[in-house]
């Protein structure tokens, strides 16, 4: 593919081992900036920005600190599995993958929502480093069950050398299939499966409380047999500590693990947070783009 668009945004964060809290915050800022930039250059000038921005800190902690992977060997058998079940936020995952070196950054500005581009609005298996094709909601935790169950079978009587992570949206917790897999994971004692819910409180058309209240959400997961934590999903240290705890076998042998992360849709862009219903999927024009950059505290690039 011929690359036409050249983004001039500066690098804020570079990969290194042992990322500190400050490093993870920088990475989260870069992912937010890049996903807005990607939206601007997207073939459709759009992506699912509201949920991407609510997820950015969690994504930064995963790619910056947690995930055991090798971008040069994307199919390495012992890598951690990472399923973005809320697949409409693939744009954000692409920015993290580019940061981690799965592909060159130019792809972000030239292949998202463009004919023959590899960066689909909802990721597919043609892009190396993607573990599941998602986008139709409710399937990702079932995929995670399959991988976690398969890993336990493969490493019989031992703790598998990798974890299986699934990122759920709160909206997709209204899908029946999500609860089918929640029951399955518990029944089959999938203690190598970790779900993280990006609980931004907005389903597409309104607040989740108005449409389909999930509360008491913590109690529901617990009642279904999951080891449950609830954290601030915009605090990289809380996110990191919760995942580190969840991935340890000793934390809750025989139990799958979930982290409910309280987040804000569109965070930290004021006009998106104030009008989250209109920023589930959004289009950015030049004026709004500049406003986003200003609110992120970044210069607008020419």
């Amino acid at each position, binding site marked *: 593919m011929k690359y036409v668009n050249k983004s001039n945004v500066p690098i804020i964060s570079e990969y290194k081992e042992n990322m500190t809290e400050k490093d993870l915050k920088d990475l989260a800022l870069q992912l937010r900036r890049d996903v807005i930039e990607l939206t601007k250059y997207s073939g459709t000038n759009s992506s699912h920005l509201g949920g991407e921005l609510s997820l950015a800190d969690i994504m930064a902690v995963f790619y910056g600190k947690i995930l055991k992977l090798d971008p040069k060997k994307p199919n390495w058998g012992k890598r951690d599995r990472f399923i973005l079940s809320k697949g409409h936020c693939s744009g954000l995952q692409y920015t993290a993958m580019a940061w981690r070196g799965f592909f060159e950054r130019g792809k972000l500005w030239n292949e998202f929502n463009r004919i023959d581009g590899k960066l689909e609005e909802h990721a597919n*298996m043609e892009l190396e480093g993607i573990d599941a094709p998602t*986008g139709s909601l409710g*399937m990702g935790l079932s995929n995670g069950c*399959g991988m976690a169950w398969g890993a336990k079978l*493969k490493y019989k009587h031992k703790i598998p050398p990798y974890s299986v992570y699934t990122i759920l949206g709160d909206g997709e917790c209204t899908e029946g299939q999500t609860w*089918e897999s929640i029951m399955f994971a518990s029944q089959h004692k999938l203690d190598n499966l970790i779900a993280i819910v990006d609980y931004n409180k907005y389903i597409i058309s309104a607040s989740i409380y108005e449409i389909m209240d999930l509360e008491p959400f913590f109690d529901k997961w617990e009642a279904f047999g999951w080891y449950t934590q609830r954290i601030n999903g915009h605090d990289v240290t809380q996110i990191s500590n919760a995942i580190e705890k969840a991935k340890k076998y000793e934390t809750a042998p025989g139990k799958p693990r979930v982290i409910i992360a309280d987040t804000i849709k569109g965070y930290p862009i004021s006009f998106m947070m104030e009008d989250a219903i209109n920023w589930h999927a959004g289009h950015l024009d030049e004026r709004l783009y500049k406003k986003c950059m200003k609110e992120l505290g970044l210069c607008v690039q020419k």
Partner: protein
Amino acid sequence: MCAKMIYGCSLKGMRATLGETLLEIGKENEKVIVIDCETGTATNILEFRNTFPERFVTMGVAEQNGISFAFGVARIGYIPIVPLFSSFMTRRACDQIFIQVGYANENIKMIGCYSGVTTPNTGATHQSINDVSIMRSIPNILIIETADEIELKQALKKIVEYKGPVYLRMIRGDISPYDQRIVPENHEFEIGKASVLRKGKDISLIGSGLMVSRCMEAAERLKEKDINVEVINCSTIKPLDKDTILKSIKKTKRVVTAENHTVIGGMGSAIAEMLIEEYPVPLKMVGIKDKFGESAELKDLLIKYGLTSDEVVKASLEIINKK
């Protein structure tokens, strides 16, 4: 050994073969996993569970979870075989199949059991009359339906060797003369190949599954009227074996298709779509005519829904007498 009775019915035919063959495949290949959604008793796969308990899993009555789970298991390197009632697999889990089997081009083997209208004591809810239409419309997925148990056994083994998504449809069982051998002694099922079971020059009868036996019966009856019939067993419905089919039709210039499925979007439609572009000839389709099934005695269902050699003979004569 497999159970001899299931729900008071003697265990013969297709599901007996499925149960036995899965056991053989399980012994031959340690990567094979069987995923059930609580139809395992009826589909006769529970001996696999008893023999290989670690490699068998039931989802409860949750077909959508079953297909997406199969994707996950396949990504770890296993070969999931998912034998479910074809109605619930292809209708209930259609989106999961579209995205996580077809779009993902994943190595998952879906076995659609109890296909067609030939499931007597269930009715329209369980009778899978449009599974081929659904599966044909999804890219990447092979569609197989065999003429008898011998070919079923061969096909099951072949699809496990094949790398990629497959949908194999079969019926419960033992409908005469379907319970007898249809394919010849030296037959070897091959993915993507149709087989000529009887040579002739006046008309081509192309059948899939149960209806291949009906085509063979019809051929005998048409012979009495001096009509020389070619019979083709279209055991791979997608992709079609265009070479074998076109070669036959270029010779006979007439065709009747016959399937245990709605005539909308099934094997007959696939042949018609191909012929209208490549070599248009008079064609008639025998199958279920755009209606829902019902629960009734099998012999009555077969007659009412047109799955008899009478229907094949009638359609053949209509085409031949047109001239």
